[in-house]
Protein backbone atom coordinates (compact mmCIF):
# COMPACT_ATOMS: atom_id res chain seq x y z
CA UNK A 1 0.00 0.00 0.00
CA UNK A 2 1.36 3.41 -0.92
CA UNK A 3 0.78 6.86 0.57
CA UNK A 4 -2.40 8.71 -0.41
CA UNK A 5 -3.17 12.41 -0.01
CA UNK A 6 -6.28 14.55 -0.19
CA UNK A 7 -5.36 17.20 -2.76
CA UNK A 8 -8.67 18.91 -3.46
CA UNK A 9 -11.89 19.47 -1.53
CA UNK A 10 -15.25 21.06 -2.26
CA UNK A 11 -18.62 21.36 -0.58
CA UNK A 12 -22.06 22.58 -1.49
CA UNK A 13 -24.05 24.86 0.76
CA UNK A 14 -25.95 22.62 3.21
CA UNK A 15 -29.64 23.16 3.90
CA UNK A 16 -33.00 22.79 2.21
CA UNK A 17 -31.84 22.70 -1.39
CA UNK A 18 -35.04 22.42 -3.37
CA UNK A 19 -33.39 24.58 -6.02
CA UNK A 20 -31.25 21.69 -7.29
CA UNK A 21 -31.55 17.99 -8.17
CA UNK A 22 -29.05 15.38 -7.03
CA UNK A 23 -26.67 15.78 -10.00
CA UNK A 24 -26.71 19.58 -9.78
CA UNK A 25 -26.00 19.40 -6.06
CA UNK A 26 -23.08 17.01 -6.69
CA UNK A 27 -21.67 19.42 -9.29
CA UNK A 28 -21.75 22.25 -6.74
CA UNK A 29 -19.27 20.32 -4.56
CA UNK A 30 -17.34 18.68 -7.39
CA UNK A 31 -16.31 21.81 -9.32
CA UNK A 32 -14.46 23.52 -6.44
CA UNK A 33 -12.71 20.25 -5.57
CA UNK A 34 -11.12 19.84 -9.01
CA UNK A 35 -10.24 23.54 -9.06
CA UNK A 36 -8.68 23.17 -5.62
CA UNK A 37 -6.58 20.21 -6.83
CA UNK A 38 -5.71 21.89 -10.11
CA UNK A 39 -6.86 18.94 -12.22
CA UNK A 40 -9.62 18.33 -14.76
CA UNK A 41 -12.43 15.72 -14.59
CA UNK A 42 -10.70 13.51 -17.17
CA UNK A 43 -7.71 13.07 -14.82
CA UNK A 44 -9.95 11.11 -12.43
CA UNK A 45 -9.65 7.37 -12.95
CA UNK A 46 -11.98 6.04 -10.29
CA UNK A 47 -15.10 7.50 -8.67
CA UNK A 48 -16.75 6.28 -5.45
CA UNK A 49 -20.07 7.93 -4.65
CA UNK A 50 -21.62 7.94 -1.19
CA UNK A 51 -25.40 8.25 -1.23
CA UNK A 52 -28.12 6.40 0.64
CA UNK A 53 -31.59 7.49 -0.37
CA UNK A 54 -31.49 6.65 -4.07
CA UNK A 55 -35.03 5.92 -5.26
CA UNK A 56 -36.39 6.33 -1.73
CA UNK A 57 -36.14 9.95 -0.65
CA UNK A 58 -35.03 11.22 -4.03
CA UNK A 59 -35.99 10.04 -7.48
CA UNK A 60 -32.77 8.74 -9.04
CA UNK A 61 -31.97 5.07 -8.42
CA UNK A 62 -28.43 5.38 -9.81
CA UNK A 63 -27.12 8.67 -8.42
CA UNK A 64 -23.51 7.74 -9.15
CA UNK A 65 -24.27 7.42 -12.84
CA UNK A 66 -26.28 10.62 -13.18
CA UNK A 67 -23.81 12.62 -11.08
CA UNK A 68 -20.81 11.25 -12.98
CA UNK A 69 -22.35 12.17 -16.34
CA UNK A 70 -23.29 15.63 -15.07
CA UNK A 71 -19.75 16.26 -13.78
CA UNK A 72 -18.00 15.02 -16.92
CA UNK A 73 -16.75 11.82 -15.32
CA UNK A 74 -18.36 9.25 -17.64
CA UNK A 75 -15.85 6.54 -18.49
CA UNK A 76 -14.09 6.48 -15.13
CA UNK A 77 -14.47 3.44 -12.88
CA UNK A 78 -17.64 4.03 -10.87
CA UNK A 79 -19.37 2.62 -7.81
CA UNK A 80 -21.93 3.76 -5.27
CA UNK A 81 -21.11 2.87 -1.67
CA UNK A 82 -23.81 2.27 0.93
CA UNK A 83 -22.96 2.32 4.61
CA UNK A 84 -26.06 4.25 5.72
CA UNK A 85 -24.96 7.53 7.35
CA UNK A 86 -21.32 6.44 6.86
CA UNK A 87 -21.70 6.03 3.08
CA UNK A 88 -19.47 9.07 2.50
CA UNK A 89 -16.68 7.48 4.52
CA UNK A 90 -17.20 4.18 2.72
CA UNK A 91 -16.77 6.08 -0.56
CA UNK A 92 -13.66 7.83 0.79
CA UNK A 93 -12.19 4.50 1.91
CA UNK A 94 -12.96 2.94 -1.48
CA UNK A 95 -11.27 5.83 -3.31
CA UNK A 96 -8.34 5.55 -0.87
CA UNK A 97 -7.94 1.85 -1.70
CA UNK A 98 -8.05 2.58 -5.42
CA UNK A 99 -5.03 4.86 -5.07
CA UNK A 100 -3.21 3.05 -2.23
CA UNK A 101 -3.31 -0.22 -4.17
CA UNK A 102 -1.55 1.41 -7.11
CA UNK A 103 -4.46 0.85 -9.47
CA UNK A 104 -5.38 4.55 -9.78
CA UNK A 105 -3.27 7.71 -9.51
CA UNK A 106 -6.22 10.01 -8.89
CA UNK A 107 -9.60 8.99 -7.45
CA UNK A 108 -12.69 10.88 -6.36
CA UNK A 109 -14.92 10.40 -3.33
CA UNK A 110 -18.20 12.21 -3.85
CA UNK A 111 -20.91 12.29 -1.18
CA UNK A 112 -24.32 13.61 -2.14
CA UNK A 113 -27.76 13.40 -0.57
CA UNK A 114 -31.13 14.97 -1.37
CA UNK A 115 -33.41 14.50 1.63
CA UNK A 116 -35.99 17.26 1.34
CA UNK A 117 -38.03 16.09 -1.63
CA UNK A 118 -40.44 14.10 0.59
CA UNK A 119 -42.48 14.94 3.71
CA UNK A 120 -41.13 14.49 7.26
CA UNK A 121 -43.25 11.47 8.39
CA UNK A 122 -42.17 9.61 5.22
CA UNK A 123 -38.55 10.49 6.00
CA UNK A 124 -39.06 9.16 9.58
CA UNK A 125 -40.49 6.01 7.99
CA UNK A 126 -37.54 5.44 5.65
CA UNK A 127 -34.85 6.13 8.21
CA UNK A 128 -36.65 4.12 10.88
CA UNK A 129 -36.31 1.18 8.50
CA UNK A 130 -32.51 1.66 8.61
CA UNK A 131 -31.91 -1.03 11.17
CA UNK A 132 -33.61 -4.42 11.06
CA UNK A 133 -36.95 -3.72 9.37
CA UNK A 134 -38.53 -7.07 10.12
CA UNK A 135 -37.73 -7.27 13.82
CA UNK A 136 -37.53 -3.67 14.98
CA UNK A 137 -39.59 -1.52 12.64
CA UNK A 138 -42.41 -3.65 11.22
CA UNK A 139 -44.27 -4.07 14.51
CA UNK A 140 -42.60 -1.46 16.67
CA UNK A 141 -42.04 1.63 14.52
CA UNK A 142 -38.65 2.45 16.02
CA UNK A 143 -37.59 5.78 14.51
CA UNK A 144 -34.01 6.88 14.12
CA UNK A 145 -34.17 9.28 17.08
CA UNK A 146 -35.72 6.42 19.07
CA UNK A 147 -32.76 4.14 18.42
CA UNK A 148 -30.37 6.75 19.84
CA UNK A 149 -32.85 7.56 22.63
CA UNK A 150 -32.48 3.93 23.78
CA UNK A 151 -28.76 4.63 24.16
CA UNK A 152 -29.43 7.96 25.89
CA UNK A 153 -31.72 6.37 28.50
CA UNK A 154 -29.14 3.69 29.31
CA UNK A 155 -26.24 6.17 29.43
CA UNK A 156 -28.18 8.47 31.76
CA UNK A 157 -29.17 5.58 34.02
CA UNK A 158 -25.63 4.19 34.25
CA UNK A 159 -23.47 7.31 34.38
CA UNK A 160 -25.80 10.08 35.55
CA UNK A 161 -25.57 11.96 32.26
CA UNK A 162 -28.35 14.56 32.22
CA UNK A 163 -30.59 16.20 29.62
CA UNK A 164 -28.66 19.42 30.34
CA UNK A 165 -25.40 17.67 29.42
CA UNK A 166 -26.92 16.58 26.11
CA UNK A 167 -28.15 20.13 25.53
CA UNK A 168 -24.60 21.47 25.95
CA UNK A 169 -23.55 19.50 22.86
CA UNK A 170 -26.26 21.17 20.79
CA UNK A 171 -25.37 24.61 22.16
CA UNK A 172 -21.68 24.13 21.29
CA UNK A 173 -22.34 22.83 17.80
CA UNK A 174 -24.82 25.59 16.97
CA UNK A 175 -22.21 28.11 18.16
CA UNK A 176 -19.66 26.86 15.62
CA UNK A 177 -22.28 26.46 12.87
CA UNK A 178 -23.14 30.13 13.36
CA UNK A 179 -19.60 30.90 12.13
CA UNK A 180 -19.81 28.46 9.20
CA UNK A 181 -21.46 29.95 6.10
CA UNK A 182 -22.21 26.52 4.56
CA UNK A 183 -24.02 25.24 7.69
CA UNK A 184 -27.74 24.44 7.58
CA UNK A 185 -28.62 25.87 11.02
CA UNK A 186 -26.68 29.04 11.77
CA UNK A 187 -28.67 30.20 14.79
CA UNK A 188 -27.18 30.29 18.30
CA UNK A 189 -29.25 28.42 20.89
CA UNK A 190 -29.30 28.07 24.68
CA UNK A 191 -29.64 25.09 27.01
CA UNK A 192 -33.20 26.25 27.77
CA UNK A 193 -34.05 26.28 24.07
CA UNK A 194 -33.02 22.62 23.87
CA UNK A 195 -34.79 21.57 27.07
CA UNK A 196 -38.03 23.31 26.08
CA UNK A 197 -38.09 21.98 22.51
CA UNK A 198 -40.68 19.32 21.68
CA UNK A 199 -40.04 15.69 22.62
CA UNK A 200 -39.24 13.54 19.58
CA UNK A 201 -38.31 10.27 21.28
CA UNK A 202 -37.79 10.72 25.02
CA UNK A 203 -35.34 11.74 26.37
CA UNK A 204 -34.35 13.27 23.01
CA UNK A 205 -35.98 16.52 21.99
CA UNK A 206 -36.07 18.41 18.72
CA UNK A 207 -32.85 20.33 19.40
CA UNK A 208 -31.04 17.11 20.36
CA UNK A 209 -31.55 15.94 16.77
CA UNK A 210 -29.71 16.84 13.59
CA UNK A 211 -31.80 18.50 10.89
CA UNK A 212 -32.84 16.77 7.66
CA UNK A 213 -30.41 18.31 5.21
CA UNK A 214 -29.48 18.37 1.54
CA UNK A 215 -25.79 18.60 0.77
CA UNK A 216 -22.77 17.33 -1.12
CA UNK A 217 -19.02 17.17 -0.56
CA UNK A 218 -16.26 16.16 -2.96
CA UNK A 219 -12.71 14.95 -2.30
CA UNK A 220 -9.84 14.36 -4.72
CA UNK A 221 -7.31 11.73 -3.63
CA UNK A 222 -3.90 11.23 -5.23
CA UNK A 223 -0.76 9.15 -4.96
CA UNK A 224 2.51 10.58 -3.63
CA UNK A 225 3.90 10.58 -7.19
CA UNK A 226 0.95 12.66 -8.40
CA UNK A 227 1.28 15.03 -5.45
CA UNK A 228 4.87 15.74 -6.55
CA UNK A 229 3.99 15.96 -10.24
CA UNK A 230 1.13 18.40 -9.58
CA UNK A 231 3.29 20.36 -7.10
CA UNK A 232 0.57 20.29 -4.44
CA UNK A 233 1.50 22.82 -1.69
CA UNK A 234 -0.27 21.34 1.28
CA UNK A 235 -1.21 17.72 0.72
CA UNK A 236 -3.17 16.24 3.60
CA UNK A 237 -2.14 12.61 4.05
CA UNK A 238 -4.38 9.75 4.99
CA UNK A 239 -2.55 8.46 8.06
CA UNK A 240 -5.05 5.90 9.28
CA UNK A 241 -8.33 4.27 8.38
CA UNK A 242 -10.33 1.98 10.63
CA UNK A 243 -13.66 0.30 10.12
CA UNK A 244 -16.03 -2.03 11.95
CA UNK A 245 -19.68 -3.00 12.13
CA UNK A 246 -22.36 -3.72 14.69
CA UNK A 247 -25.34 -6.10 14.86
CA UNK A 248 -28.45 -5.29 12.80
CA UNK A 249 -30.71 -6.01 15.79
CA UNK A 250 -30.15 -3.48 18.55
CA UNK A 251 -31.26 -6.21 20.94
CA UNK A 252 -28.01 -8.05 20.20
CA UNK A 253 -25.62 -5.28 21.28
CA UNK A 254 -23.36 -5.82 24.30
CA UNK A 255 -24.78 -2.76 26.06
CA UNK A 256 -26.44 0.60 25.34
CA UNK A 257 -23.86 3.03 26.67
CA UNK A 258 -21.47 3.08 23.72
CA UNK A 259 -20.93 1.82 20.19
CA UNK A 260 -18.60 -1.18 19.96
CA UNK A 261 -18.06 -0.42 16.27
CA UNK A 262 -16.60 2.98 17.18
CA UNK A 263 -14.20 1.45 19.68
CA UNK A 264 -12.95 -1.15 17.17
CA UNK A 265 -12.73 1.21 14.19
CA UNK A 266 -10.87 3.89 16.15
CA UNK A 267 -8.37 1.44 17.63
CA UNK A 268 -7.64 0.20 14.12
CA UNK A 269 -7.16 3.75 12.83
CA UNK A 270 -4.94 4.83 15.76
CA UNK A 271 -2.78 1.74 15.24
CA UNK A 272 -2.36 2.37 11.51
CA UNK A 273 -1.53 6.05 12.12
CA UNK A 274 0.72 5.10 15.07
CA UNK A 275 -0.83 7.79 17.26
CA UNK A 276 -2.85 8.04 20.46
CA UNK A 277 -5.98 10.17 20.93
CA UNK A 278 -4.07 12.81 22.92
CA UNK A 279 -2.04 13.70 19.82
CA UNK A 280 -5.14 14.89 17.92
CA UNK A 281 -5.50 18.62 17.31
CA UNK A 282 -9.12 18.50 16.19
CA UNK A 283 -11.88 15.97 15.55
CA UNK A 284 -15.22 15.72 13.84
CA UNK A 285 -17.45 13.08 15.40
CA UNK A 286 -20.81 11.62 14.44
CA UNK A 287 -23.30 13.77 16.39
CA UNK A 288 -26.54 12.86 14.62
CA UNK A 289 -28.03 13.17 18.12
CA UNK A 290 -26.44 14.87 21.11
CA UNK A 291 -26.01 11.58 22.98
CA UNK A 292 -23.99 10.28 20.02
CA UNK A 293 -21.33 12.97 20.53
CA UNK A 294 -21.03 12.18 24.27
CA UNK A 295 -20.64 8.45 23.52
CA UNK A 296 -18.14 9.23 20.75
CA UNK A 297 -15.86 11.11 23.20
CA UNK A 298 -15.72 7.96 25.31
CA UNK A 299 -15.56 5.35 22.55
CA UNK A 300 -12.81 7.26 20.69
CA UNK A 301 -10.75 7.49 23.87
CA UNK A 302 -10.97 11.27 24.40
CA UNK A 303 -11.98 10.41 27.98
CA UNK A 304 -12.82 7.34 30.05
CA UNK A 305 -16.15 5.52 29.62
CA UNK A 306 -18.82 7.42 31.50
CA UNK A 307 -16.92 10.72 31.55
CA UNK A 308 -18.20 12.16 28.26
CA UNK A 309 -20.62 14.50 30.02
CA UNK A 310 -17.78 15.84 32.17
CA UNK A 311 -15.79 16.66 29.03
CA UNK A 312 -18.60 18.79 27.54
CA UNK A 313 -19.39 20.42 30.92
CA UNK A 314 -15.76 21.50 31.28
CA UNK A 315 -15.67 22.90 27.75
CA UNK A 316 -12.83 20.54 26.82
CA UNK A 317 -14.27 19.96 23.35
CA UNK A 318 -14.41 23.64 22.44
CA UNK A 319 -11.59 25.56 20.80
CA UNK A 320 -9.10 26.19 23.62
CA UNK A 321 -10.00 22.90 25.31
CA UNK A 322 -8.26 19.55 25.26
CA UNK A 323 -9.71 18.45 21.91
CA UNK A 324 -11.96 20.73 19.83
CA UNK A 325 -14.83 18.67 18.39
CA UNK A 326 -17.22 19.53 15.56
CA UNK A 327 -16.03 23.08 15.07
CA UNK A 328 -17.87 23.09 11.72
CA UNK A 329 -21.18 22.76 13.59
CA UNK A 330 -21.30 18.98 13.34
CA UNK A 331 -24.15 16.95 11.96
CA UNK A 332 -26.26 18.64 14.62
CA UNK A 333 -26.10 22.12 13.09
CA UNK A 334 -24.03 22.03 9.92
CA UNK A 335 -26.47 19.31 8.88
CA UNK A 336 -26.48 15.61 8.05
CA UNK A 337 -27.05 14.85 4.37
CA UNK A 338 -26.60 11.16 5.11
CA UNK A 339 -24.41 9.94 2.24
CA UNK A 340 -22.46 13.21 2.05
CA UNK A 341 -21.55 13.49 5.73
CA UNK A 342 -18.40 11.34 5.65
CA UNK A 343 -16.97 13.36 2.76
CA UNK A 344 -18.06 16.59 4.43
CA UNK A 345 -16.06 15.62 7.53
CA UNK A 346 -12.88 15.12 5.48
CA UNK A 347 -13.59 18.42 3.67
CA UNK A 348 -13.67 20.24 7.01
CA UNK A 349 -10.58 18.54 8.45
CA UNK A 350 -8.56 19.19 5.28
CA UNK A 351 -9.35 22.90 5.61
CA UNK A 352 -8.54 22.84 9.32
CA UNK A 353 -5.18 21.11 8.72
CA UNK A 354 -4.28 23.56 5.94
CA UNK A 355 -5.18 26.43 8.32
CA UNK A 356 -6.82 28.12 5.40
CA UNK A 357 -10.26 29.30 4.44
CA UNK A 358 -11.73 28.34 7.77
CA UNK A 359 -13.48 31.24 9.48
CA UNK A 360 -11.25 32.75 12.19
CA UNK A 361 -13.43 31.91 15.17
CA UNK A 362 -13.49 28.21 14.38
CA UNK A 363 -9.90 27.39 13.37
CA UNK A 364 -8.57 24.84 15.84
CA UNK A 365 -4.98 25.53 16.96
CA UNK A 366 -2.58 23.08 15.30
CA UNK A 367 0.31 21.48 17.17
CA UNK A 368 0.80 18.03 15.67
CA UNK A 369 -1.30 18.67 12.54
CA UNK A 370 -3.31 15.50 13.12
CA UNK A 371 -7.11 15.29 12.84
CA UNK A 372 -9.73 12.57 13.20
CA UNK A 373 -13.09 11.96 11.49
CA UNK A 374 -15.59 9.56 13.06
CA UNK A 375 -18.55 8.54 10.92
CA UNK A 376 -21.24 6.12 12.12
CA UNK A 377 -23.75 4.43 9.83
CA UNK A 378 -27.15 3.56 11.25
CA UNK A 379 -27.08 3.16 15.03
CA UNK A 380 -23.55 1.79 15.22
CA UNK A 381 -24.31 -0.61 12.37
CA UNK A 382 -21.30 0.66 10.45
CA UNK A 383 -18.36 2.77 11.59
CA UNK A 384 -15.43 4.39 9.82
CA UNK A 385 -12.65 6.37 11.49
CA UNK A 386 -10.19 8.33 9.38
CA UNK A 387 -7.03 10.02 10.63
CA UNK A 388 -5.48 12.77 8.51
CA UNK A 389 -2.07 14.36 8.90
CA UNK A 390 -0.56 17.34 7.16
Amino acid sequence: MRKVAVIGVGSSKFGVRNDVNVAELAFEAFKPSVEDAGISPKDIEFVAVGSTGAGAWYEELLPAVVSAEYCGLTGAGLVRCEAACASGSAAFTTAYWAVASGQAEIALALGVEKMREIDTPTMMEWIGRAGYYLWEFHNFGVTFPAYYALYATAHMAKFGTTEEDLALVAVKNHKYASMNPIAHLQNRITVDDVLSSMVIAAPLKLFDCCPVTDGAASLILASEEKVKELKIDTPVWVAGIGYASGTANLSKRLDYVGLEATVSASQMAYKMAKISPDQLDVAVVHDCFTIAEIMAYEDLGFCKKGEGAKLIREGQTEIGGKIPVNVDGGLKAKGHPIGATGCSMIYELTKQLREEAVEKGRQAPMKNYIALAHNVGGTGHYCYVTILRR
Partner: protein
Amino acid sequence: MAAMPSLKSREIKIVQDIPISKTLPFWEGLKQGKVLATKCKKCGKLYFPPVADCSQCLASDMEWVELSGEATIETFTHVVVRPTTFQHEKPYTVAIGRLKEGVRVLAWLTGFKLSEVKVGMKAKLVAKITPEGNLTYEFTRLE
Protein backbone atom coordinates in the same frame (compact mmCIF):
# COMPACT_ATOMS: atom_id res chain seq x y z
CA MET B 1 -38.25 30.34 1.75
CA ALA B 2 -40.52 30.65 -1.26
CA ALA B 3 -41.48 27.32 -2.81
CA MET B 4 -39.09 26.33 -5.56
CA PRO B 5 -40.45 25.20 -8.93
CA SER B 6 -40.61 21.39 -9.09
CA LEU B 7 -42.10 18.41 -10.96
CA LYS B 8 -44.07 15.68 -9.19
CA SER B 9 -42.43 12.27 -9.70
CA ARG B 10 -44.61 9.37 -10.84
CA GLU B 11 -46.34 7.77 -7.87
CA ILE B 12 -45.72 4.16 -6.87
CA LYS B 13 -47.03 2.11 -3.96
CA ILE B 14 -44.62 -0.38 -2.46
CA VAL B 15 -45.72 -3.41 -0.43
CA GLN B 16 -43.31 -6.30 -0.10
CA ASP B 17 -44.28 -9.94 0.62
CA ILE B 18 -41.81 -10.89 3.36
CA PRO B 19 -41.10 -14.66 3.43
CA ILE B 20 -41.69 -16.29 6.83
CA SER B 21 -41.75 -19.96 5.84
CA LYS B 22 -38.55 -20.72 7.77
CA THR B 23 -39.80 -19.10 10.99
CA LEU B 24 -43.48 -20.05 10.62
CA PRO B 25 -43.71 -21.78 14.05
CA PHE B 26 -42.82 -18.42 15.62
CA TRP B 27 -45.73 -16.62 13.94
CA GLU B 28 -48.07 -19.56 14.61
CA GLY B 29 -46.88 -19.55 18.23
CA LEU B 30 -47.90 -15.94 18.67
CA LYS B 31 -51.47 -16.90 17.71
CA GLN B 32 -51.40 -19.47 20.54
CA GLY B 33 -50.07 -16.93 23.05
CA LYS B 34 -46.49 -18.22 22.99
CA VAL B 35 -43.24 -16.40 22.25
CA LEU B 36 -40.82 -18.92 20.73
CA ALA B 37 -37.08 -18.77 20.17
CA THR B 38 -34.81 -21.14 18.27
CA LYS B 39 -31.91 -23.11 19.70
CA CYS B 40 -29.11 -24.62 17.63
CA LYS B 41 -29.08 -28.39 18.10
CA LYS B 42 -25.38 -28.53 17.26
CA CYS B 43 -23.82 -25.75 19.38
CA GLY B 44 -26.68 -24.91 21.71
CA LYS B 45 -26.89 -21.18 20.98
CA LEU B 46 -30.29 -19.63 21.70
CA TYR B 47 -31.66 -17.09 19.21
CA PHE B 48 -34.18 -14.30 19.49
CA PRO B 49 -35.35 -13.18 17.01
CA PRO B 50 -35.68 -16.81 15.87
CA VAL B 51 -33.48 -17.94 12.98
CA ALA B 52 -33.37 -20.99 10.71
CA ASP B 53 -29.59 -20.97 10.44
CA CYS B 54 -26.93 -20.71 13.15
CA SER B 55 -24.47 -17.85 12.58
CA GLN B 56 -22.17 -19.30 15.25
CA CYS B 57 -21.60 -22.80 13.82
CA LEU B 58 -23.43 -22.50 10.46
CA ALA B 59 -25.66 -25.49 11.19
CA SER B 60 -29.27 -25.35 10.03
CA ASP B 61 -30.75 -27.77 12.52
CA MET B 62 -32.70 -25.75 15.06
CA GLU B 63 -35.26 -26.61 17.72
CA TRP B 64 -38.09 -24.38 18.90
CA VAL B 65 -38.20 -23.40 22.57
CA GLU B 66 -40.81 -21.35 24.42
CA LEU B 67 -39.46 -18.33 26.29
CA SER B 68 -40.37 -17.74 29.94
CA GLY B 69 -41.23 -14.11 29.26
CA GLU B 70 -39.51 -13.02 32.50
CA ALA B 71 -37.67 -9.85 31.51
CA THR B 72 -35.56 -7.08 33.01
CA ILE B 73 -35.87 -3.77 31.16
CA GLU B 74 -32.43 -2.53 30.09
CA THR B 75 -33.47 0.63 28.27
CA PHE B 76 -36.50 2.35 26.77
CA THR B 77 -37.76 5.39 24.87
CA HIS B 78 -41.12 7.03 24.36
CA VAL B 79 -41.72 7.68 20.67
CA VAL B 80 -43.75 10.86 20.17
CA VAL B 81 -42.98 11.79 16.55
CA ARG B 82 -44.12 8.77 14.58
CA PRO B 83 -43.44 7.55 11.04
CA THR B 84 -46.10 7.57 8.31
CA THR B 85 -47.34 4.03 8.93
CA PHE B 86 -47.62 4.60 12.71
CA GLN B 87 -49.45 7.95 12.50
CA HIS B 88 -52.69 6.31 13.67
CA GLU B 89 -51.06 5.05 16.86
CA LYS B 90 -50.79 7.06 20.08
CA PRO B 91 -47.19 7.77 21.16
CA TYR B 92 -45.68 4.44 22.19
CA THR B 93 -42.93 3.18 24.47
CA VAL B 94 -40.23 0.94 22.99
CA ALA B 95 -38.05 -1.08 25.35
CA ILE B 96 -35.23 -3.59 25.23
CA GLY B 97 -35.49 -6.30 27.87
CA ARG B 98 -33.21 -9.15 28.79
CA LEU B 99 -35.01 -12.42 29.34
CA LYS B 100 -34.13 -14.94 32.05
CA GLU B 101 -32.78 -17.21 29.28
CA GLY B 102 -30.18 -14.58 28.34
CA VAL B 103 -31.55 -13.33 25.01
CA ARG B 104 -32.76 -9.76 24.61
CA VAL B 105 -35.98 -8.61 22.97
CA LEU B 106 -36.98 -5.23 21.56
CA ALA B 107 -40.73 -4.59 21.78
CA TRP B 108 -43.36 -2.12 22.92
CA LEU B 109 -43.86 -1.73 26.65
CA THR B 110 -47.50 -1.26 27.66
CA GLY B 111 -49.57 -1.05 30.82
CA PHE B 112 -47.27 1.38 32.66
CA LYS B 113 -47.39 5.12 33.14
CA LEU B 114 -44.26 6.55 31.50
CA SER B 115 -43.12 7.95 34.87
CA GLU B 116 -43.18 4.40 36.30
CA VAL B 117 -40.82 2.96 33.71
CA LYS B 118 -37.27 2.52 35.01
CA VAL B 119 -34.12 0.85 33.77
CA GLY B 120 -33.75 -2.40 35.74
CA MET B 121 -37.46 -2.99 36.39
CA LYS B 122 -39.13 -6.35 35.76
CA ALA B 123 -41.70 -6.91 33.03
CA LYS B 124 -43.38 -9.81 31.27
CA LEU B 125 -43.03 -10.54 27.56
CA VAL B 126 -46.31 -11.75 26.07
CA ALA B 127 -47.63 -12.66 22.62
CA LYS B 128 -50.27 -10.36 21.20
CA ILE B 129 -52.63 -9.99 18.28
CA THR B 130 -53.33 -6.33 17.52
CA PRO B 131 -56.87 -5.04 16.83
CA GLU B 132 -55.87 -4.94 13.14
CA GLY B 133 -54.91 -8.62 13.33
CA ASN B 134 -51.12 -8.21 13.27
CA LEU B 135 -49.11 -10.83 15.13
CA THR B 136 -46.74 -9.25 17.63
CA TYR B 137 -45.41 -9.38 21.20
CA GLU B 138 -44.95 -6.82 23.95
CA PHE B 139 -43.63 -6.22 27.44
CA THR B 140 -46.27 -5.60 30.05
CA ARG B 141 -46.89 -5.68 33.82
CA LEU B 142 -46.20 -8.83 35.82
CA GLU B 143 -49.55 -10.17 36.94
